[in-house]
């Protein structure tokens, strides 16, 4: 990973970009550029090989059938697993989060193998979809302010021993297990159910990924006034729904 530039890889926008997932790529790009870090963004379609030389990989949310197709193609390609073995950072959302685990339930109702990059297993909930604003406290180890997001899913994700919960819920369903956890991470691989998109509401997560990629402890400050205003509004809405 080079010191002065960032290779950002957006995995399979043709399949996994249903919930404004491009937003996470745009926020990472913008906040790196504001720090004068040049960004090369590579959007990889599902009929193209996943490059192994990226610094940050983003993988988004999608519907049930494209999720299965994405898992099949990522397993066959192997590029994302090789990139992680090389130390790359992966941030995944919703359907993408489930794909990073050992297994999820596909659109045909059958268990579908994931990539095994996170020690999680996902199933499908029986009840209503989890839809609404979420508020959670991020693992103190990451040193980030509270997580705000919008969840819109029916998944249930169980964490294994080597996956740490990304956050502890104050409001919302998160992993859907009823144990108060939301998302998971292990070293440089992250997963969450949060849309919004999550980086727009939590720009410090984008900054964390940039810092990890550049191997620096701090970044120059940028003007966060609109992010702060949005965060305050959505945190209030989560605590006291309209």
């Amino acid at each position: 990973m080079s010191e002065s530039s960032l290779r950002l890889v957006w995995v399979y926008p043709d399949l996994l970009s249903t919930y404004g997932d491009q937003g996470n790529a745009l926020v990472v790009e913008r906040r790196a550029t504001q720090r004068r870090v040049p960004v090369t963004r590579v959007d990889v379609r599902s009929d193209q090989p996943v490059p192994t030389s990226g610094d940050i990989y983003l993988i988004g949310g999608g519907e049930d059938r494209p999720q299965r197709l994405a898992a099949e193609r990522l397993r066959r390609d192997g590029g994302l697993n090789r990139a992680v073995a090389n130390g790359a950072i992966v941030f995944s959302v919703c359907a993408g989060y489930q794909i990073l685990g050992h297994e999820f339930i596909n659109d045909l109702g059958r268990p579908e193998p994931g990539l095994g990059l996170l020690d999680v297993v996902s199933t499908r909930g029986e009840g209503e979809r989890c839809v609404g604003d979420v508020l959670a406290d991020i693992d103190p180890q990451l040193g980030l302010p509270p997580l705000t997001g919008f969840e819109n899913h029916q998944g249930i994700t169980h964490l294994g021993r080597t996956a740490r919960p990304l956050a502890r819920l104050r409001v919302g369903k998160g992993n859907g297990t009823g144990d108060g956890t939301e998302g998971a991470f292990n070293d440089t691989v992250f997963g969450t159910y949060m849309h919004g998109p999550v980086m727009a509401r939590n720009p410090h997560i984008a900054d964390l990924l940039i810092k990890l990629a550049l191997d620096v402890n701090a970044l120059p400050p940028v003007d966060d006034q609109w992010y702060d205003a949005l965060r305050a509004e959505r945190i209030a809405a989560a605590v006291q729904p309209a």
Partner: protein
Amino acid sequence: MAGNSEPLSPRAKLAVTAGRAAAAVSRAAGKGSGSVIGGKVALRFDPDLLARLARHLDVVLVSATNGKTTTTRLLAEALRAGGPVVSNALGANMPAGITSALAGGSDARFGVIEVDEKYLAGVARDVSPKAIALLNLSRDQLDRAAETRMLAEKWREGLAGSEAIIVANADDPLITWAASSSPTVVWVAAGQSWKDDAWSCPSCGGVLQRPGDDWYCGECGFRRPTPTWALSGDHVVDPYGVAWPIQLQLPGRANKSNAAVSAAVAAAFGIDPKVALERMYKVQAVAGRYDVVSFLQRDLRLLLAKNPAGWLETFSLIDGPPTPVILSVNARGADGTDTSWLWDVDYTRLAGHPILVIGDRKMDLAVRLEVANLQFRVCANLDEAVRSAPPGRIEAIANYTAFQDLRRRVGN
């Protein structure tokens, strides 16, 4: 003319009367036009009423993610050349609203009916339409809409073996997939600007190849059918290769596309394209959309854009810089409560315009515009936004309930 040669049964008459009474009560209570409650009451009295009312009519159904209401208006105007038309022109597009609209048109020959995407297959079963116009399918209301492809699949199953003439947009792979189970399809090259919901083959899941205006699946061979009608710039080309000029008061490429499909449908009803298109010119504004209103000494053009495909089409029709643009977004029930679609809209298209931001979710928009590196100003309300623009034209783009708020404020 068809007319009501076969009178309604006593039960159906009672149902219609009860529905009208309920609508009148609703209106008197100040709760809108009452068409939906009226239809609900009428259907309670006679569950088969919709089918009975439609039996006397030559019906065409119109469905799509975007352009349903406008196309319904254009088509109603065109078909009036052939006889009286009854239509749910106000966009009440679920079974109750449709029933209510049809109950109000006892002398009509044609029924031009806008149908919500989720109800298309059911309504098509009930009313045995002569034609069905299918315009486009794309992501909309992420928190509750079915998957876009699943919707296409439901249409495909519901329309299989339909006796209706399906008039379908061949440039939209999902529409093509939905329509191609029907025995009689008239394919119209009606264009598609938004492509991000159709990169996967609806048939086999392969990656679609989309060179130029063409599209095909390299894996299973599913491909764009050869159209017999085509939108070509400002003209619609009929099956004989004759190019008819489209002249509309409504702006934008999307409305030319709507007009092209309407001309093809009208032809199926025996209306000449020239006559159909001339009549479409009469349509000025549709439920406030595209209306230009005078407000605080400025001329506000009211534009509705509910989803990424709609915003994309809207950006292509607004006046260039330095015309100010007001953006208003809500996320109430009717809008869908998930705002992440804002990130699918390419706001960099607004570079150079003064941008004024209002609406319940102005902070979401502010972050979106900040990340797009655009200059903008967040305003407390419409009045403040309008006052901060110089006299002259302002383009006001809003999603569903935000649009209703705009209309209410400007007295439209």
